[in-house]
């Protein structure tokens, strides 16, 4: 074996957003040697961009809230395709996970009596999101980071993992490179936690950063783990649409939580025109009631702008398609109108939504306290991902765990806003805890050297490819165009079949992309290597979307516009790598809800 720099850990965590940091902190409490690898600098992971808040039934603002209500809301929002056990653990444990952040220095906004303030959000019956203005993610990642750096965790910043290493059936480590010099690093570990986030970079319009190339999904798939429900990609209804260079940047749901309303070019609040049966009893039927809800009136029902994200995104697309969109192909989101309702509205908006104010002012010359924003759907999140055990977060590969966005089960067909930050904390902790336990109970295993040399050769291939090979950025852009067009909000048999063909064609080209320059901090080379992951997850999303011949949650099929018949739609799509190295898919029925769960859902309806 060629010589590689090698690091030995009990637990290796890949990804340093909320889930990875929380997992690392937990694993480190066992006095184990913990390594944390991240693609960017510490504290820059995608969690930093989360805005609205973290969902936890603290019941600080409305004492009627409870874990049972949170559980029921999550299951309903996910169209009952979620793993109920995960939804239970999540609802029960997120309050403690939020409180614990405060013990690590986080400072959430306060209620009058000095406890953690909570705000309304789509799909949550009660004000449930602990928040800090609209920069909750920053507060969370900084609290975790500042606590984490004192726990003896070894951090490898700006390192990318390109392959997991297995010895027999068990995961035994990972192969990566560091950006600065492009040198390879071998990590051997008794247990590995994937916490790599999402896949947004497979699409052209996205709120996600360059890091979101589906690394964890792809690493797990190639290591033999299963991916579930990959068809459920969340298109957040409100991304910026103008100017073109900022298209896709997120506009927090918090704007609507604070009273923001959606209007079309005719000035109509179109969300009142289409309220799904499942939510009709909980939704206001007039603007005044909706306003009162956002102002904390406990008797009022929520405005239709706070329906689930999947539904709102579809309504916006409909308005635009039917010619009632805004000048740049979105709709209007108006928070300035609240000056009709409250004194000092401008100051109030700037205080509650400081980064939105800043973002529109600086990037679009729009003062949101004076005029409406133009917004439209943006690829934001993937509900599907690596299949894990609900309690331990272990995949079907022994020693391999996953948590956060790259894992799946909690959100079903659609995620509620605020349930991602809580997901990161609850299941990040669990993954760290069970990975540590696995490391304590199992001996380390030797790495398979042959496999490592093979990976090294593959990773260097873009330099060896002929100079006339494609530009990696060009292939990435082509993939994003195709995914946006064919596997976006509106899908069909035809578009998805074509998408799979396009992915195959691009795979051929990706094998031959050429990297110029040398191995030092070479973005072109890195982009070439990311293509492997992007193509794998793009194929998985298209294949799963083809398999589910119905429209449910975030997955919409033009050719099957309805949900499947009662009961028939209660399955998860499961993807795994076949023995022939091809992507295989099957359905598995969703586990029947226990009587207890059913009772909670009926009671909390």
């Amino acid at each position, binding site marked *: 074996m060629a010589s590689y720099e090698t690091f030995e850990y009990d637990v290796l965590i890949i990804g340093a957003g909320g889930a990875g940091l929380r997992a690392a902190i937990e694993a480190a409490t066992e006095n184990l040697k913990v390594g944390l690898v991240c693609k960017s600098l510490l504290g820059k992971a995608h969690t*930093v961009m989360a805005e609205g808040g973290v969902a936890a039934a603290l019941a600080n603002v409305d004492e009627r809230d409870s874990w049972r209500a949170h559980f029921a809301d999550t299951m309903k929002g996910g169209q009952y395709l979620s793993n109920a056990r995960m939804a239970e653990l999540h609802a029960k444990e997120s309050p403690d996970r939020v409180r614990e952040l405060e013990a690590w220095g986080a*400072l959430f906004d306060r209620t009058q009596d000095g406890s953690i303030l909570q705000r309304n959000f789509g799909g949550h019956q009660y004000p449930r999101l602990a928040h800090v203005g609209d920069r909750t993610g920053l507060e969370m990642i900084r609290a975790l980071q500042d606590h984490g750096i004192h726990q003896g965790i070894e951090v490898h910043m700006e390192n990318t993992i390109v392959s997991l290493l297995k010895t027999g059936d068990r995961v035994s480590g990972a192969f990566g490179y560091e950006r600065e010099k492009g040198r390879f690093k071998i990590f051997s570990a008794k247990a590995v936690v994937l916490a790599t986030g999402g896949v947004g970079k497979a699409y052209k319009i996205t709120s996600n950063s360059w890091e979101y190339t589906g690394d964890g999904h792809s690493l797990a798939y190639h290591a033999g783990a299963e991916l579930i429900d990959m068809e459920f990609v969340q298109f957040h209804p409100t991304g910026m649409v103008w100017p*073109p260079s900022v298209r896709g940047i997120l506009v927090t749901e918090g704007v609507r939580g604070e009273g923001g309303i959606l209007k079309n070019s005719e000035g109509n609040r179109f969300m009142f025109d289409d309220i799904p049966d499942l939510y009709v009893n909980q939704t206001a039927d007039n603007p005044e009631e909706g306003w009162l809800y956002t102002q904390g009136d406990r008797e009022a029902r929520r405005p239709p702008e706070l329906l689930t994200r999947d539904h709102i995104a579809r309504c916006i697309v409909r308005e635009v398609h039917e010619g009632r969109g805004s000048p740049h192909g979105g709709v209007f989101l108006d928070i300035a109108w609240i000056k009709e309702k409250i004194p000092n509205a401008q100051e109030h908006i700037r205080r509650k939504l400081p980064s939105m104010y800043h973002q529109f002012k600086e990037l679009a010359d729009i003062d949101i306290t004076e005029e409406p924003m133009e917004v439209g759907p943006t690829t934001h999140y993937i509900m599907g991902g690596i299949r894990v055990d609900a309690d331990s977060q272990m995949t079907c590969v022994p020693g391999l765990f996953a948590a956060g966005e790259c894992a799946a089960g909690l959100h079903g067909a659609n995620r509620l806003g605020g349930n991602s930050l809580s997901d990161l904390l609850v299941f990040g902790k669990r993954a760290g805890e069970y990975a540590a336990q696995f490391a304590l109970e199992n001996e380390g295993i030797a790495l398979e050297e042959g496999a490592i040399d093979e990976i090294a050769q593959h990773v260097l291939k873009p330099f060896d490819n002929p100079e006339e090979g494609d*530009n990696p950025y060009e292939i990435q852009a082509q993939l994003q165009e195709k995914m946006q067009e064919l596997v976006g909000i509106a899908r069909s048999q035809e578009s998805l079949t074509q998408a799979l063909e396009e992915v195959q064609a691009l795979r051929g080209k990706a094998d031959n992309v050429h*990297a110029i320059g040398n191995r030092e901090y070479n973005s072109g080379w890195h982009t070439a290597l990311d293509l492997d992951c992007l193509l794998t997850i793009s194929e998985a999303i298209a294949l799963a979307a083809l398999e589910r011949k119905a429209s449910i949650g975030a997955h919409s099929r033009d050719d099957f516009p309805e949900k499947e018949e009662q009961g028939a739609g209660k399955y998860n799509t499961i993807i795994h790598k076949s023995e022939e190295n091809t992507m295989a898919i099957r359905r598995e029925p969703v586990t029947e809800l226990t009587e207890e769960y059913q009772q909670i859902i009926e009671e909390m309806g």
Partner: protein
Amino acid sequence: MAKATFRIWRGDADEAQFVDYETEVSEGMVVLDAVHRIQAEQANDLAVRWNCKAGKCGSCSAEVNGNPKLMCMMRLNDLPLDKPVTVEPMRAFPIIKDLVTDVSWNFKVKEKMKPFTPRPPDAEDGTWRMEQEDIDHIQEFRKCIECFLCQDVCHVLREHDLHDEFIGPRFFVYAASLEMHPIDTENRLEELKNEDGIGYCNITKCCTKVCPEHITITDNAIIPLKERVVDQFYDPIKKLFRVFSGKA
């Protein structure tokens, strides 16, 4: 479509120079968009850090026409495009390659600082009660996105290279967020006075001017910390008072 020239710093610690790239520019573009377009079309191996592209992560710090900026928030509309726009790395840190600098020193500084140490919880459920008005000013400090632009412009670091004796504005803001935190019990004043070198700051407010989060670093963080240091170590009356009251 209009074209503009970007004069970008290319190279590493051993050898580097400005290279001109002409590229198309369109409405609403920011400097980072132009750099990305150049990277995708003309210079695949161009090194640049970025993540959120919305001023929230603090990754894409650089010097644009000599001014320390987040490239993602620097609109081309606000720059004269009739002459080349210069884009170069932060100069207070060692260069790695092109626009990427070695900022690891910042992470080491933070690790050495005394962590948050809360008093016992106020309530049985392990939580604390804090008034919003008592945390407003701490929340201002916690807006920091660690872009390190304040470190980049601080002459104590940039010109005098006192990285071993001075932690820089970012970490005074961090220290202030801990020292003024209503439930923190640790005392960091001795470190601030000695190894952190707060005395080197002569309040020229360069850091405050460049902060993309508009944190009033000098007035709200550094000056109050300086006052606390003076109170603890130099005020004879307070010193006497502490002796008699038994407070350390």
